[in-house]
């Protein structure tokens, strides 16, 4: 074959050209730049504009953020330090507030010695999350930990006896057991209802007595030893508190000393700068005067132009038309205005220079005194400084001359005046230039002189901050011990009276029963005297109120016994009040609880909205529409104020819990709509496929429909979650101290009054980290699912 070709084809390439590197402009970074940033004139324009905007933004923000002060005890101190660096108190951020208060922004009023509890809860959260987020990478048994996590976390954060979370979790176990047993005997609806009833029964009626019993059992055994330790503590703690107070006083003295040193340093730095200030005082009025003179000179120029064009007084000519007359009028008015301006500006600049606070000679003396010692050239400059009088005299003469000018003055006169003003301008200009030169030299030599004191100031501020931290720790310890002391005292007295109280219970009960039996049968169920019929006699009223009093005494004694035992018998963590939980931790608790609870609720609502069961469907639709149609803040107010109104009196329903419920319901409505979109996007064939295999409704939902619908809905779900998480800051309006609430609290402190930006930047950054992470995870998940089942 090849020979044939060799003859018939005139030229066949038998050697391939080696592969070549593409031209520089078509490869690597340059190619990338060309195609992405500079591909056409519009693109180039946009690139340049955006680069410029980015540069502008960064050039404002970065120096502010990175030139900030980290160690200071108050906004005033911050400003002092900033001023000693930049000669302006706005040159940098005052991050010291974050340094000082970040623990509060994170944890609220949670006791600092117990910070490990929320931190541990948060760390465990990620372990609990692993089986959900990375199901394919961790062992399946970990899901049990995820299920137990809500109880563990609640216990860690709020504290209490270790059996409390176990008892609470048992409610679910009871529910599931009942479901299993009833499921075998009856239909699914009865079984589900039975399970719910059983769980509620457990939580409402069985859990409390078991808890009390455990408390009593453990507490009874500890009574003696506890009384002994408390008495021993009562002797010891006051001494400890006294010692700590002495230490505190020491620290306060140390701090006062450090503050004095710092003030001296600031003073010294101000002295180094004193010549700068002197020159500035000299410079500023001169610069203003110069601007005025330039203005006067320009006015004269304009005046000359107008007069030149106008050329005399056309109104004198008899043939002047009406328009000419009116034009002449305008020109004459403007000329008069300009003349007035010139005169005023000249007068003002004389005033400026006269007001000039420091004589140039004084400045020169200053130079001699100090700065010149380092830079002799300053002396020469100072010699050249013009005396104030040498400027004022010619200016006064000029001003007098300017008053002589009218619209009738000759152009020559005006020109001459202009030239003379320019001479003064030139001399003033030279004067200013000399001063600026001096100023630059002084600043340059001061910069070096200031380096050391500035560094010393920073380290002094750091020492001061450290001292203050120590003082805070001591103060917290003192507070803790003295609280423990007073609590111990109260508890000791309730322990002492415990036997008496217990002994009095049977008697009180007998008394209550006797009083009750004395009442007419129809009145025994009443709970207030006002419920008696109007015509009840005063004896009847007295009898009922006696019975009610006795009953409430008995109940309160019983409650106090139960409380004492709970405290005595607690094997577990110190309980923390919801009021002490605040800051970013609060946002996280509400956010995470809301997210975890709203997803299942949202799924149920979405399924309900799709359901063919009329009532279920309508309930879900109404719920979703009502919740979605009202702003979250309204629901939060409803939760915090109105809910109490509807609940039976005496039920003390934790505000935080109410907020979590409201946030959950709100987010669930949105999640439901997002998931409904996913369900609608699913082909009916999927439902039919599942049905034809004999899967039950819940099985086909769980195994076929929801996994696919959820996959479609991931972006929407995560979006809702991010929104929910950020919306938690709204709780500030119902009096919870979330991060924003805390920023208000911090500002209420006189030390930090007036600080905004730094706090908001910090809080914003905290939220951003979490929201960004959620967004990234959702992208990762989408990609992964996309890969797996196309």
């Amino acid at each position: 074959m090849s020979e044939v070709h060799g003859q018939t084809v005139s030229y066949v390439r038998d050697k391939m050209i080696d592969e070549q590197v593409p031209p520089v402009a078509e490869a690597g970074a340059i190619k990338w730049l060309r195609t992405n940033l500079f591909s056409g004139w519009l693109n180039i324009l946009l690139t340049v504009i955006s680069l410029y905007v980015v540069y502008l933004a960064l050039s404002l923000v970065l120096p502010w953020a990175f030139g900030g002060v980290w160690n200071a005890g108050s906004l005033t101190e911050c400003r002092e330090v900033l001023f000693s660096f930049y000669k302006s108190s706005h040159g940098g951020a005052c991050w010291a507030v974050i340094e000082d208060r970040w623990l509060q922004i994170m944890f609220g009023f949670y006791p600092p010695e117990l910070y490990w509890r929320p931190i541990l809860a948060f760390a465990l959260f990620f372990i609990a999350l692993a089986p959900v987020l990375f199901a394919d990478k961790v062992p399946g048994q970990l899901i049990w930990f995820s299920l137990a996590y809500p109880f563990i976390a609640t216990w860690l954060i709020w504290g209490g006896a270790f059996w409390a979370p176990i008892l609470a979790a048992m409610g679910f176990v009871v529910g599931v057991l009942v479901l299993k047993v009833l499921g075998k005997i009856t239909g699914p609806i009865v079984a589900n209802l039975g399970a719910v009833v059983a769980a509620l029964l457990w939580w409402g009626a069985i859990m409390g007595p078991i808890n009390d019993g455990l408390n009593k059992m453990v507490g009874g055994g500890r009574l003696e030893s506890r009384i002994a330790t408390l008495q021993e503590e009562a002797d010891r703690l006051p001494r400890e508190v006294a010692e700590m107070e002495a230490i505190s006083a020491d620290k306060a003295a140390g701090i006062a000393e450090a503050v004095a040193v710092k003030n001296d340093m600031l003073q010294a730095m101000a002295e180094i700068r004193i010549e700068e200030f002197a020159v500035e005082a000299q410079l500023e009025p001169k610069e203003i005067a110069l601007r005025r003179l330039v203005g006067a000179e320009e006015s004269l120029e304009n005046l000359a132009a107008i007069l030149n064009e106008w050329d005399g007084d056309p109104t004198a000519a008899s043939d002047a038309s009406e328009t000419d007359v009116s034009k002449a009028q305008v020109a004459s008015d403007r000329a008069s205005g300009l003349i007035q301006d010139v005169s005023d500006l000249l007068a003002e600049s004389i005033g400026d220079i006269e007001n000039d606070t420091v004589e140039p000679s004084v400045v020169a003396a200053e130079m001699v005194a100090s700065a010149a010692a380092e830079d002799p050239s300053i002396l020469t400059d100072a010699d050249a400084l013009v005396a104030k009088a040498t400027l004022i005299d010619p200016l006064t003469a000029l001003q007098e001359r300017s008053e002589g000018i009218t619209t009738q003055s000759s152009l020559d006169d005006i020109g001459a005046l202009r030239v003379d003003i320019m001479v003064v301008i030139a001399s003033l200009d030279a004067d200013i230039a000399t001063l600026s030169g001096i100023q630059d030299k002084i600043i340059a030599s001061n910069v070096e002189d200031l380096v050391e004191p500035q560094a010393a100031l920073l380290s002094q501020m750091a020492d001061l901050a450290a001292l203050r931290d120590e003082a805070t720790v001591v103060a917290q310890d003192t507070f803790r011990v003295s609280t423990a002391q007073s609590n111990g005292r109260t508890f000791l007295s309730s322990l002492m009276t415990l036997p008496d109280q217990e002994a009095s219970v049977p008697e009180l009960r007998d008394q209550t029963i006797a009083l009750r039996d004395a009442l007419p049968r129809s009145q025994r169920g009443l709970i207030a005297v006002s419920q008696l019929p109007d015509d009840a006699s005063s004896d009847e009223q007295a009898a009922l109120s006696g019975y009610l009093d006795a009953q409430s005494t008995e109940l309160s004694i019983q409650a106090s016994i139960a409380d004492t035992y709970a405290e005595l018998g607690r094997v577990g963590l110190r309980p923390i009040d919801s009021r002490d939980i605040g800051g970013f931790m609060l946002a996280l608790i509400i956010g995470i609880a809301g997210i975890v609870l709203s997803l299942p609720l949202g799924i149920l609502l979405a399924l309900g909205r799709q359901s063919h069961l009329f009532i279920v469907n309508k309930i879900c639709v109404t719920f979703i529409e009502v919740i979605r149609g009202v702003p979250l803040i309204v629901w939060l107010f409803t939760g915090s104020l109105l809910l109490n109104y509807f609940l039976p009196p005496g039920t003390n329903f934790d505000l935080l819990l109410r907020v979590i419920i409201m946030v959950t319901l709100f987010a669930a409505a949105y999640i439901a709509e997002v998931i409904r979109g996913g369900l609608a996007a699913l082909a009916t064939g999927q439902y039919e496929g599942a049905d034809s295999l004999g899967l039950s409704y819940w099985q086909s939902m769980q195994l076929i429909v929801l996994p696919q619908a959820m996959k479609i809905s991931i972006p929407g779900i995560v979006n809702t979650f991010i929104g929910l998480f950020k919306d938690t800051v709204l709780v500030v309006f119902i009096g919870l101290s979330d991060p924003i609430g805390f920023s208000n609290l911090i500002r209420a402190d006189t030390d930090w009054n007036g600080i905004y930006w730094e706090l908001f930047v910090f809080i914003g950054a905290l939220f951003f980290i979490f929201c960004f992470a959620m967004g990234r995870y959702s992208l990762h998940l989408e990609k992964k699912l996309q890969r797996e089942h196309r």
Partner: protein
Amino acid sequence: MSDTTTERAVNRDAMKVSDEVAISITDMNKWFGTFHVLRDINLTVNRGERIVVCGPSGSGKSTLIRCINRLEEHQAGTILVDGTELSSDLKNIDKIRSEVGMCFQHFNLFPHLTILENCTLAPIWVRKTPKKEAEETAMHFLRKVKIPEQADKYPGQLSGGQQQRVAIARSLCMRPRIMLFDEPTSALDPEMIKEVLDTMIELAEEGMTMICVTHEMGFARQVANRVIFMDAGQIVEENEPEAFFNNPQSERTQLFLSQILGH
């Protein structure tokens, strides 16, 4: 489109019809709103019978076989499947559905599960078969439909014919006593049609009771022991394949057959 069927000899002797009744439909009527889709349907299918249902589009073929496993609800008459009456009792419905396999025109595989998971899902969750056993069964049927090597892929990665065979295997994994096919080959290329029909013929040879909506007349001739022609919601003609094709009684059937076989 008629004769894409196999050249291989079909072993009709193996297909025994017993006297036991598998499905019996009496005076069944169904409406969609006011539209009367199925009128007075009477049909008895014995165990081991292979019924082919054909008829023009919109005549109610799909609706009829979907009624048999209650994907559609009928409004009058009775349907007995294996002696159990289809009513709104959920327990009966789930029981019947797990006894009756169904293959759809568009396969309806679950795209988020692998082929193996598709096949083991129902046995594990409905029949409560242990996972291992379910997987063995699934592999057995996947071998039978000749795609065991695809077990770990996702449905989206398979061809149409392969997907339909998976769908058949998925139904078989529930060990159904009756199989319903709703135009299993009409979304496929001729090549793939053959794969699927081969599988169905094998099933028939094993004695499976089948009701098959299809326009594959070759398949009907070879495999069916009765062909049913439907029009406008009614069973117009019902006969053995030879008689049905060679000697159609009603005019409507003749017209339909001439259209479908004519060219």
